[in-house]
């Protein structure tokens, strides 16, 4: 290129003048003042002038140049040509100035100046405090409440011992007594059972269950109901959803193709099964983080490592290396937030601004994942190579081998037929066609062009037909169903992990070894490659440390989540951030007591559920109390149970359940596709792509089985704040907006389900309007309506029929629609 040549001319021209020179000669200073300084002032000093140090670098004096910034010294007096400054102005590493490359003359001047020793006033050495105020790792920060070891606190003694059913109540009551508050009275049986049922299953209770509890609300009955609900397979379907939010579970990759992730649903099923079991949380951690490294091969553990594969994947990255590090960052960010409540992702480019997590800790943590294979390269096949492994039994393997062999043979036979025809055509090719014919995908076109000339038309069509079959078949190799999406590594040896200066993979710094965040005073990781020779064993070391009772964060973070899932809000309201600037716990002793209890009971979720659900704290009413509201308006102290809105999935599932059409029978397996309006599909670049049609039965399955496509969300779920799945989501929003009302009033889904509700109401209640109103309200609210409520419904009925000339069945449908919009349906007490 012309301009590139001219740069070199000037460069070498000046370089010829370079002689060994005194670094700060008066001649050099003069050159600096007349030639160099104006350039620096015009192009550099806005960010790197006196008192300014973007990227830690100031160019205001020679000492500052030698001290340098985040990327090290700006000039290298030993080897001037390797100076960072020269790299940057030549756009070799950084591109400086960012507004555009300097003209070649100016580059030549700066180059000469550096070659001559960069004469300039010495200036000050004091670096302009590059990391002012960043928390340091020291005794004080090591003593942060969540970084300390967990020690089981004493259960406090309280005055009102009659209110204490278990230690949870004592911790809660102690705060009330200190604050001069009283807990709310117990919730009435109906709201309590509705609360409990939604809490454990995400579904409305049957009216029969409510009535059973109303008839006998003894503690024994209450506990029996808890057991029944925890034993229900639908409990796992509900609780899995919380965990899936935390681990950014989605079933497609985002970006242009946003293709589905093969077998990802096995991970979802694995999580459902975990919550339906009473296996320990420590096991759950180890399976997800290192299940592939277990000594004993287990398909469950292999499936669990699908955890690593749930994130974004750009199959057409701008920069493959950057994409790799973005993938690593996803693992560091998700793992540290989900399991440890640490936002380590903030230390990728520099030391964490708010927590004592130096940048080195980030890369030491990333080193645990450094040897993992990226999700894929480009094609589906590359995804299968990097991320899919067999979970087949030997018998299944054998059957599949046969199938694969048959496929190979069939593809080979077809290709042979194509080759034969092409061999006959080849001698007839002329000129450019010879080149075109080199390209397999062009051959059909060339042959077609000469149809009837080189080959009879029928034979050309036969060729085209074979080609199509061959192509289809070749692109769809048989894939065993017994496979799982999982993590894989490059082998037992990991490449070096470098600290990346300013997070740039183009600026590797020091090498680091796998290590845990220093501020947690951790042990050194014990790394031993597994016997199978397929990985480094690093992730096992990580999993062992995270799942260890010595880890100060793991149990605290998880018990807080469980508390949040029951009460709608954690004792720590920033559940993914237990750092210095996270929210402090409202009840630190209770949190620690629960954490200790959790670990001592084998990390059992069931044990915690039982403690929480049987406490008085859980069973109090949600009603307002003026005195308490004045003292603690935000209910920090849990003097009442917080009302909550149904989550998006609960809302959809309830609508289906209340008209008896929810398909609870079918659990597990590949995901389902409810109808999405064509207006919404029109937003896709290929409307309908990767959104299949499920059978009517499948469309009525629970929402957890709905395919989660990153670029396309079922509108009802999107409107009701389903988690954005690109990153970990610890707490969902609960917004209130008019578009929700429009969906609930006018959408095809609601109208269809309201009609179905009307049908079952008609069936159960017959033609009597009062019975219809009663039945509709019973189904939606799970209680007997009052006579005023029935009366109000009858008035609406009457006006719809008499004033607005709706037929009686249509009026019933809209009464049902109205019922599905009630606040009492959408909010739990």
């Amino acid at each position, binding site marked *: *290129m012309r301009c*590139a040549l001219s740069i070199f001319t000037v460069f070498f021209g000046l370089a010829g003048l370079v002689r060994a020179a005194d670094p700060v000669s008066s001649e050099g200073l003069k050159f600096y003042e007349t030639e160099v300084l104006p350039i620096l002032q015009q192009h550099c000093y806005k960010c790197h002038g006196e008192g300014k140090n973007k990227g830690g670098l100031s160019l205001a004096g020679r000492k500052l140049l030698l001290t340098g910034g985040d990327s090290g010294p700006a000039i290298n007096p030993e080897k001037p040509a390797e100076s960072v400054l020269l790299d940057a102005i030549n756009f070799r590493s950084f591109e400086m100035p960012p*507004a555009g*490359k300097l003209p070649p003359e100016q580059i030549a001047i700066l180059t000469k100046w550096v070659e001559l020793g960069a004469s300039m006033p010495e200036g000050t050495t004091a670096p302009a405090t590059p990391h002012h105020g960043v928390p340091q790792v020291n005794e004080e920060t090591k003593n942060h409440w969540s970084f300390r070891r967990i020690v089981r606190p004493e259960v406090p003694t309280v005055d009102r011992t009659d209110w204490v059913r278990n230690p949870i109540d004592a911790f809660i009551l102690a705060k009330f007594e200190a604050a001069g508050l009283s807990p709310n009275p117990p919730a009435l049986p109906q709201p309590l059972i509705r609360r409990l049922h939604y809490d454990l299953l995400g579904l409305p209770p049957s009216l029969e269950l409510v009535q059973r509890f109303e008839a006998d609300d003894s503690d024994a009955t209450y506990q029996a109901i808890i057991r029944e609900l925890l034993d229900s397979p639908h409990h796992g379907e509900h609780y899995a959803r919380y965990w899936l939010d935390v681990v950014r579970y989605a079933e497609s990759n985002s*970006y*242009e193709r946003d293709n589905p992730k093969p077998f990802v649903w096995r991970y979802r099923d694995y999580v459902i099964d975990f919550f339906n079991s009473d296996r320990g949380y420590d096991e759950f951690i180890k399976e997800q983080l290192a299940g592939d490294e277990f000594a004993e091969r287990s398909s469950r553990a292999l499936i669990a490592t699908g955890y690593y594969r749930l994130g*974004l994947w*750009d199959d*057409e*990255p*701008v920069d493959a290396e950057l994409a790799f590090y973005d993938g690593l960052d996803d693992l560091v960010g998700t793992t540290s*937030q989900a399991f440890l409540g640490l936002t380590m*992702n*903030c230390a990728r*480019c520099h030391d964490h601004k*708010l927590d004592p997590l130096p940048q080195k800790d980030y890369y030491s943590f990333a080193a645990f994942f450094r040897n993992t294979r990226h999700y894929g390269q480009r094609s589906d096949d590359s995804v299968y190579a990097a991320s899919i492994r067999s979970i087949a039994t030997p018998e299944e393997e054998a059957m599949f081998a046969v199938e694969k062999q048959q496929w190979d043979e069939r593809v080979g036979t077809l290709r042979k037929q194509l080759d034969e025809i092409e061999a006959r055509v080849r001698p007839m090719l002329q000129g450019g066609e010879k080149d075109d014919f080199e390209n397999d995908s062009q051959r059909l076109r060339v042959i077609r062009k000469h149809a009837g000339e080189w080959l009879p038309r029928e034979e050309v069509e036969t060729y085209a037909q074979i080609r199509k079959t061959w192509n289809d078949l070749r692109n769809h190799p048989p894939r065993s169903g017994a496979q799982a999406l999982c993590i894989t590594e490059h082998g037992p040896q990991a490449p070096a992990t470098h600290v990346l200066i300013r997070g740039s993979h183009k600026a590797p710094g020091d090498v680091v070894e796998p290590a845990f965040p220093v501020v947690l005073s951790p042990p050194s990781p014990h790394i031993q490659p597994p016997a199978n020779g397929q990985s480094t064993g690093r992730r096992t070391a990580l999993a062992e440390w995270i799942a260890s009772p010595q880890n100060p964060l793991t149990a605290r973070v998880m018990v807080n989540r469980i508390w949040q899932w029951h009460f*709608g*809000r954690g004792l720590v*309201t920033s559940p*993914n951030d237990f750092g210095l*600037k996270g929210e402090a716990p409202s009840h630190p002793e209770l949190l620690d007591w629960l954490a200790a209890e959790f670990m001592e009971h084998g990390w059992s979720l069931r044990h915690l559920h039982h403690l929480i659900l049987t406490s008085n704290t859980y069973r109090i009413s*949600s*009603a*307002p109390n003026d005195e308490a509201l004045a003292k603690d308006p*935000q*209910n920090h102290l849990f003097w009442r149970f917080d009302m*909550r809105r149904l989550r998006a999935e609960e809302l959809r599932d309830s609508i289906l359940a209340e008209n008896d059409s929810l398909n609870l029978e079918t659990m597990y397996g590949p995901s389902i596709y409810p109808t999405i309006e064509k*207006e919404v599909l029109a*937003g*896709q*670049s*290929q409307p309908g792509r990767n959104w299949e049609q499920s059978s009517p039965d499948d469309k009525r399955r629970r929402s957890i089985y709905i395919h989660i496509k990153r*670029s396309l969300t079922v509108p009802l779920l*999107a409107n009701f*704040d389903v988690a*954005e799945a690109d*990153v*970990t989501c610890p*707490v*969902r*929003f*609960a*917004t*209130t*907006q*008019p*578009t929700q*009302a*429009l969906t609930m*009033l*006018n*959408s095809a889904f609601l109208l269809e389900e309201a009609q179905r509700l009307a049908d079952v109401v008609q069936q159960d209640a017959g033609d009597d309007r009062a019975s219809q109103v009663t039945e509709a309200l019973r189904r939606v609210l799970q209680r007997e309506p009052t006579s005023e*409520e029935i009366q109000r419904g009858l008035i*609406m009925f009457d006006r*719809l029929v008499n004033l*607005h000339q*709706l037929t009686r069945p*249509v009026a019933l449908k809209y009464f049902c629609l109205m019922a599905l919009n*009630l*606040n009492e349906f959408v909010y739990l007490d």
Partner: protein
Amino acid sequence: MTNHNFCGRTRREFLWQTGAGFTGTALTAMLSQDGFFNSTAHAAEGLPEFVNPLAPKDPHHDADATACIFLYMYGGPSQVDTFDYKPDMMGRDNQTVQVKTFGRGGHRNEGRIVEPRWKFKQYGECGKWVSDLFPHLAEKVDDIAFIHSMTADSPIHGSAMLMMNSGKILSGSPCIGSWLNYGLGTMNENLPGFVVMLDPRGGPISGPKNWSSGYMPASYQATVMRSQGNPILDLAPPAELGTKAQRELLNTLREYNTEHLKSRHDNSNLAARIASYELAFNMQAHAPEAVDIAQETTATQTLYGLDDPKTATFGRQCLLARRLVERGVRFVQIYSGGAHNDDNWDAHSDMEFNHNLHAGETDKPIAGLLADLKQRGLLSKTLIVWGGEFGRQPTAEYAKGTGRDHNSYGFTTWMAGGGIKGGVSYGQTDELGSAAVQNRAHVKQMHATILHQMGLDPNRLSYFFSGLDQKLVGVEEVEPLHEIIA
């Protein structure tokens, strides 16, 4: 890096928005004191006020523009064939040159020049060179600031689209329209604050990701509006019911809900939900009026090209955009081009066919929009942004033909109205238009300029998420392009 508002307002907003059991008026009152809401007026009669998350908020500084219309030329229009005049290319068709390019075909060091197939002429007082692709728009150059030195981080549609719309090549971040509504609220509660209109040929690559509110709550997500038929999904009440009977239904609903609220009087979420139904009912009435183009004179319709089938669709969308910003909608994005290949500006095989088609469809409507806004005195308050996710290379993609591959090293976008200087050109590419060489500008600076013109400080507008104060322009401070600001 300052974190002065880390524990203050931002954090409270975060708590408020996450919901998470933070019921109660108390927090709302706290936020009001913080100045987070400066208008909370929307109460159903006799009920506590509904705090609309989209209630108008004060800008950081006096705003030049109160609304923004982003004309998105999806696929990547070629700079050298449109506004970035390169006389050095003329007469050099098919010459092989050494030039570094990077597109979907990867990195290359040389290529075959495709000389622009259109003639360039000078227009306006500023004497701007514009190609024959835009005979109408060319007449407006004195209102336009061209940015010829645009650069982006990706020359691949998927990630480049996300970058242009959300500032990042990774998916999951909110788009400009979400940021504007988060920062400023909307002036008209009866209409959505962030509207997207799509090309009838299809959505862009990545579809709804391009108008997602990312990690922000759904309150800030876009509403897709259609220029014909029912404008918004689920807007119309079912025909068998009708508006009057629906009102009956809503009255009954409100009675039940009011009764339910009595014993839960402190719960502002319940009250808000009651009020949201009134708002929805109002939207049902107002949105169809806003899109009723029959109210416009024939002269206006013709100005936008509604009388010509070629320009009618985009023209109708531009006219709608004007009607929406007149009614207080904050951000409108219109896509020219949809789906794949030649259905949008992605001219890989035949420049002439492709750009004649898409420029032909949009030239008159855009010129009409500028003229109409100006004659109504709205242009000074409405920021118009034109551009795609990247530009195109000066050289051919294939051995034959005129198609050009993607180019994020240098491309052209332009802005007009809303306090932007007219008749100026900022930055330069090299003599072939292959890369920005002078006053290089990045998508982030373009975003900073949009925010700045709308009254927001791009380095202050932040949203606390994942342990960080997230910003549209990223963590490093970014300056708007002051040179194009009047």
